[in-house]
């Protein structure tokens, strides 16, 4: 009973947001937005694990999303069922995460962060150059998600599929964070030397965090490829990586719920601003970059008022 009460305490703000958004914006638009928020939240969970739990700087998370998206797109393009392709997309993200974490054995702090940035650039370059598989810079179309003949073409279906994936990802992360792996990640985050003295291998803990983060990114990438329907290497550039990083810090990098709140801010606020902008008078409504300026102001306000993130502790 108390479990249900806890779940409801976490879920009611989301139910309220959706209940308000559907009549205000229209079901299709609101559910389309919810689908992207949830997909971003899954990728954001990966950043929360790597950055918030294990304390590592990850500047190239979009590359792991790209690996998931491309593996899914290529396999589905070759006739594999999306549901069968998805575990391989997740595995590709996890493998990418493991590779990206290798420099952590020798590098730390910002230097390691720079190596993740380099990893992202390499992945983007490979995707652009490997024409025969990825169709290079021209990009590739991705078919819709389907399971046993049922196609998730409607936005409601897409939102439900994403929600199912997010629920599974949240459950897995909650279990991991409460397990010895989670304790090892936090020990490494707080003091690497002390963690090693207690028998925790910092290198192994970091790699585990990156593998989990990469797997979540791969899952998000696979869903993203289906929902957007067209992927090209430039979509997974540094801007996307920084968006994911910003998502984690705005939402609260040390809490799993932070990924959801961060995704809501990153994906939904610019669209909300776009809707409000339509009501501005005269030439104000058509000022170029107005959304970006207002979005920047929202971010600054969130950081000032909630430095630990929306889901984090109050200052």
């Amino acid at each position, binding site marked *: 009973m108390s479990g249900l009460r806890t779940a409801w305490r976490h879920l009611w703000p989301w139910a309220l947001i959706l209940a308000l958004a559907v009549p205000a914006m229209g079901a299709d*638009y609101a559910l389309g937005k919810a689908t992207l928020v949830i997909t971003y939240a899954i990728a954001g969970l990966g950043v929360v694990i790597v950055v918030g739990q294990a304390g590592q700087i990850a500047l190239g998370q979009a590359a792991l999303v790209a690996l998931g998206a491309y593996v899914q797109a290529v396999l589905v393009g070759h006739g594999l069922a999306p549901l069968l392709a998805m575990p391989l997309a997740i595995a590709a993200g996890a493998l990418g995460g493991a590779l990206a974490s290798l420099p952590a054995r020798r590098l730390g702090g910002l230097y390691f962060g720079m190596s993740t940035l380099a990893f992202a650039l390499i992945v983007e370059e490979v995707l652009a150059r490997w024409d025969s598989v990825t169709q290079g*810079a021209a990009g590739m179309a991705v078919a819709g998600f389907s399971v046993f003949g049922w196609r998730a073409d409607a936005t409601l279906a897409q939102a439900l599929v994403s929600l199912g994936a997010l629920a599974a990802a949240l459950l897995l992360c909650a279990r991991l964070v409460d397990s010895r792996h989670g304790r090892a990640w936090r020990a490494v985050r707080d003091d690497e030397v002390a963690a090693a003295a207690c028998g925790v291998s910092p290198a192994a803990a970091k790699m585990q965090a990156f593998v989990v983060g990469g797997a979540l990114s791969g899952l998000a990438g696979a869903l993203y490829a289906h929902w957007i329907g067209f992927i090209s290497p*430039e979509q997974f550039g540094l801007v996307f990586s920084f968006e994911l990083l910003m998502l984690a810090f705005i939402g609260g990098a040390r809490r799993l719920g932070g990924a959801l709140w961060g995704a809501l801010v990153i994906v939904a606020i610019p*669209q909300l601003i776009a809707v409000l902008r339509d009501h501005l008078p005269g030439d104000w409504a*058509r000022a*170029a*970059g107005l*959304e*970006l300026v207002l979005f920047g102001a929202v971010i600054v306000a969130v950081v000032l008022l909630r430095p630990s993130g929306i889901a984090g502790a109050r200052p």
Partner: protein
Amino acid sequence: MKTLRSFALAALSCLALSAPVSAAPGVNAKEIVVGTVSDLSGPIAMLGVPVRDGMLMRFDEVNAGGGVHGRRIRLVVEDAGYDPKRAVLAARKLVQRDQAFAFIANMGTPVVMATMPIIVDAGRLHLFPFSPHRATYEPLHPLKFQNFAPYFDYMEAATRHMVEQRGYARTCLLYQDDDYGLEVMKGVEAALARLDRELVERTSYKRGATDLSSQIARLRAARCDLVVLATVVRETVAAMAEARKIGWEVDMLVTASGYSAQTHELGGAAVEGLYGVSVLPHPYVEGANSQLAAWVERYRARFKAEPNVWSVMGYTLADLFVRTAEATGPELTQEAFARTLERMQFSRDYFGSPSYRFTPEDHLGNRHGRLAQIRDGRWVLISDYLE
């Protein structure tokens, strides 16, 4: 009872009269809603802003004259910043919330490819997107229309014309590493193949690169005598400036993406002599016909800015929409508009545009460009539209 029946009939008649003339989404008795997913803050904002202003200007003119069959046209602009994620949400907003009748000039291939299925699945028209992707007009779809000449077609004709007329022996290519660059490369290769020649050297750059010194050095080492540029404005200037800086007086030919007043404004003397392909001439006031001069004045007065080729494009696209909507008649639906556009022929106008022609079998309105050259700090047209 009789009174009640009469009242009910009268009420029904009132309802029928007050109902919209057409049940098509985005059309009611008073207005037609047109949507565009543009780039006003991203990497091609220098196109997006003037294109939007050109469209606004044409629609404002129509509205001031009483609209199309009594309906005002309302343009709803969404800024996706070249980001397909934002574009998908923007397209859904325009489809569902704003009930856009048609989409015009959606901007950028990732944006167009991500939003096009949403738009056509909702039964809305997808008109004249800024993307070289063939999926915008092939395979034939009842709601998709394109009027931008494909890079492949006009660069094939332009390269062939240049090599044949000027006798270049060593043609090379500098291209942006994306779908745009690849399309141009295919066109250049096809032209050279028809002349039984090969592309001597090719080298690429990533979008946003500012230093092209290594690429220019490589092309020079290959002793190219014509360099085709699949670049946009900034990279065109950088390529020409680098070549001149190292004393290499090679001829260069840029696509319509580099045919812009900004090219000679930014490049100055370094870009003097650059060849370019124009699919729509730049609206220079000097030497303009009276209609064009008056248009430039109206544009300046409306936006407090100088118009450029992108403004003309926006204006032209909106004009194609207006003329087709007028020809369709008061019973405006997506289906009726599309079938009318398939019969439309738009002759060359005071901007110097090509003629646009659509048929039920071909939804691509134009395949041709013409050659221009920068002489004394401005683009001068040096050929008619090339077949």
